[in-house]
Each structure stands twice: as C-alpha cells, then as structure tokens.
C-alpha cells in the first residue's frame, strides 16, 4: 500500500494546491484512530505511573513519546499490546475495545502489531533466522515464503551476514536490529518502537529512523516511537520519504513551507500528558520542564 506524498505533508503557504490533499486526509478511515487511549490510569502497588492518559494515533501517523526514565513510556506500549491491563480507562485498537479481551482474543489483535522491545528480547535459544521467522512459523507459512521474507527483512536492517548466528554472538546494536526485523515481518499495520536507537551509533540510529519514516510515509503504518534522543525527533518530525522517478526512496525535509501533520509529539510528565503537539511547538515552548528536555538545560 503506497500513500502519496500528500498524506504526509500539508502545505503551509498559499501557493500550493491542496484541495485533493485535504480529501485524502479527511477520508473516514484516516480520521478513525488506530490506537486510542481513553483516560488510562495505572498504578504499580502504591505508585501511580499513568494518571488519566488520553491520546490517539491515526492511520499512517507516528506518535513520538518523550518522558523521563521510569515515566511509564514502556508501560504505555505494553498496555497497547494487552500485556498488562489498565486499572481504569479504555484502550481501543482499530476501533475495537480491547480492554477486557482475554488472551486468545488479544492474540488476534497482536497479529497486526509489531513491537521492538527496549532490550531486544530476542529468543536466545533460537538463531537469528528463527527469531525473525518466528511469527511466520507460528502462522504456518510455507518454508519458501518464510525464507524469502526473513532474508528481505534482514537485508532491510543490514544484517544478512548474521543470519546463522545465535543472539549471544551479536552486539547490542545488532540484537536491536534483529528485534526490529522480527517486529516488521508480516507487515504489521501498527509498529511500536521502544527506544530503538538507544546505545546505537549515529548512522545506525539514522537508518532506524529512516526505516520508521518509510513505514509511515510509504506503507501507511501507524507507529509509536519512544525515544530520548533529539536527533531522532528531528529526523522523524521534519523529513518525509518519497519515491522518485527511478523508483528509489528519497528523504526530503519539510522546510519552511510545509508542516507535516502525521507526526506528533507527546511528553509524559508525572503520569500525565505534559505536552502534545508538533515539533515546532515543542521547540518554541518556553515551559522550563520542556526546555530542559529539548535543550538539555
């Protein structure tokens, strides 16, 4: 599924035609949220982690989540997958209220979600190949198709050489990339990235961001991207992917004329949403808490 350029950017100035773009943006299936949190509260023991969080992610949208370490970012992601249940509030995936689903029902929902774990969470008794192939094997896909898909995914994360290695033979960054490949197999429509670039060198981190941008702009994937790094935030919220005349993927900057509407930033603060909006607003904010986050002081 290829979305055209119009879905990912809206023109800011008048000299750009945008009537057809508005149409694309307003289509009902684009408005209906793919992920929706309604007043989610969660406490571990006595400690309140999430205190009335509401937000939604539309199709093809990326939500960047910022927040202090231990602020509940990974918890939000685990809630989306139904790995833990909220104390109060509702969670909707694709319009389905999954809050009270039992495990078998959640299994169905999880089929359309890919998750990149903060720590990788690779199966260390299985080689890289089987790790990536895991979901396809569970679905009983033909061996040939599995092989092709696994190789394609590993090429995607530039790890074809590691195909026969065991996870404990890989470096941290390689493990993370295998985790990404594993999450993306089977083309999930929702992808959750939990600090996918932490501890990676800048070029690799950049590659991962490009990957997320491509998924968003070319494959219409909705995603949540938890990160601490301002570089990631800048890439994700100011660049978009297009396919040029030669069929190559190119990344372009939004510049001063365009404002991307498919990437939003959400900042958690003491269990509540401290900020929600576009990167420009975040950068311009003069709230001291946000400024320490963005500028480091």
């Amino acid at each position, binding site marked *: 599924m290829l979305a055209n350029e119009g879905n990912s950017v809206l023109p800011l100035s008048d000299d750009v035609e945008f009537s057809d773009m508005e149409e694309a943006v307003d289509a009902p299936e684009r408005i209906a949220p793919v992920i929706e949190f309604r007043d989610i509260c969660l406490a571990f023991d006595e400690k309140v982690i999430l205190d009335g969080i509401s937000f939604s992610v539309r199709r093809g949208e990326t939500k960047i989540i910022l927040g202090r370490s231990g602020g509940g970012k990974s918890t939000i992601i685990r809630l989306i997958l139904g790995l833990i249940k909220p104390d109060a509030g509702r969670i909707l995936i694709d319009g389905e209220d999954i809050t009270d689903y039992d495990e078998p029902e959640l299994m169905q929902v999880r*089929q359309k979600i890919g998750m990149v774990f903060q720590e990788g969470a690779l199966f260390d008794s299985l080689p890289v190949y089987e790790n990536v192939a895991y979901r396809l094997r569970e679905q009983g896909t033909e061996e040939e198709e599995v092989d092709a898909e696994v190789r394609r995914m590993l090429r995607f994360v530039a790890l074809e050489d590691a195909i026969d290695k065991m996870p404990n033979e890989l470096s941290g960054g390689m493990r993370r990339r295998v985790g990404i490949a594993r999450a993306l197999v089977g083309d999930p429509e929702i992808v959750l990235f939990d600090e996918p670039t932490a501890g990676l060198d800048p070029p690799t981190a950049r590659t991962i961001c490009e990957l997320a941008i491509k998924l968003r702009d070319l494959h219409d994937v909705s995603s949540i991207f938890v990160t601490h790094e301002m570089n990631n935030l800048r890439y994700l919220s100011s660049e978009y992917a297009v396919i040029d005349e030669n069929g190559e993927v190119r990344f372009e900057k939004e510049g001063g004329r365009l404002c991307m509407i498919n990437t939003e930033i959400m900042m958690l603060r003491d269990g509540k949403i401290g900020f929600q909006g576009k990167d420009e607003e975040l950068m311009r904010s003069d709230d001291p808490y946000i400024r320490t986050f963005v500028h480091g002081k």
Partner: protein
Amino acid sequence: MNPLFRFIAELQDVSLLLWRSIISLRHGPRYFAETLRQMDMIGVGSLPIVLLTGFFTGGVLVLQTYPTLEYYSIQNESGRSVATSLIRELGPVLSALMVSGRIGSAISAELGSMVVSQQIEAMRALGTDPIRKLVVPRIAALILMLPLLTVAADIFGLIGGGIVANYIYSQDVQVFVESVRNGISTKDIVGGMIKPLFFGLIIGVVACHKGLSTRGGTVGVGRSVTNSVVTASIWVIIFDFFLAKALQYLLDIGRL
C-alpha cells in the same frame, strides 16, 4: 502475608496454570515438534542418572536386607523383597526426585530467564500463547517419559540387586530371578506405572509455575529454581503416600 494464605494463593495459581494447560489442548495450535524435543531431553537426557540411581538402590537393598533374611533363613526370597520395594515405591519416587532435580530445575531456570529477559512478553507480543508453546509440551513430555524412566530404573535396580546377591552373597542367579518373578504381580507393575504419571504432572506444573512467576532478575531465577525443586520433591513424597493408599484400595495391592 501469612504462610497459610500464601500457600492457598500458590495452590490457586498452580491449579489455574494446570487448568489453562488443559483447556489449551482443546483447539488451536499444538506443538508436537517441541513436545518431541522435550521428550528427548527429558527421557534420553535423564536416562543415565535414573539408571545409576536404580542400579545402586537395587544393589544396596539386597546388601542390607540379605543378612536379615538369612537370619530367618528366607534368603531365597531376597529377589522378592527388592522387587516389591523397588517397583512399588523406590523406583517411582527416586526417579521422580532425580527428574525433579535435573528437569524441574532446568525448566524453571529456562522459563525464569525467559521471563526476566522479556522473552515471554515478546512471545505473547508475537501472538503465541506461552502456555501452549512452553508449558504444555513440557508437562506432556514429563507425563509420558517419567513412567518409562521408572521402568528402566526398576529393571536396572533388579539387575543391581541380582549382581549383589550373586557376587557378594553368592546366591544363585536362578534363585534370585525366580523369587523376583514370584514377588511381583501385574498389579504392582500397573501401580508402579500410574504413580509416575502423577509425579510427572506435579514436577511439570510446579516447575513451569515457578519459572513463569519469576520476579526480580537473575537472583529471582535462582530462587525459582530452588523453590521449584524443593516444592516438587516435597509434593512427590506427600502425593506418594496418598497414591499408595489409593492404589491399595483400588487395585488391592500392597497386601501379601
């Protein structure tokens, strides 16, 4: 939390795990390959230690009882005494304890480290039910393999007993074999095979439960392993008593 309350809560969790394993058998994916792999690991892997245990237990039984039997001039019945105690009690119980030490610990360590490294969560996130994929094959393999291991232990116990009778007390092999054959009935053998079915279930459920409920990093894994072996062993011994009583009643064995 008071110990009684904790015990009841734990019992509830274990029963719940067992129940969920059973209902997961009804439909949906079954992991036969994984079950076979576990059977290989549990059965073939535990064979050496179980055989050694059986062999030396049988040997020591003869070693200790022969003088007493000789005192009453019934030393020709030494085969019978080894056979009954081995097949009814020591074979099943000792095999179960050895398997609990070797396999129960391995299972809880494996599942526990999968929990703390988030692999269980990853598995659920990828749409697989860990109970189906991990718990059921392990319990099934234990239930299937433990009776076979027990039979092997019994046989090696009898061989060990025979060797001791023959070499140390110079008893004729024929006499020993004859007394073994007189000593055991089909009921004994059936009873001796029923017990390990339950022991396999106990070891499997306890080990999987302890593994999956691991909390608190690597230290937690160590704690789960210890707990799993201790709990399973105690339950095996307690259950053995009640099973023996039940079998006495149902199969009318245990009387002369």
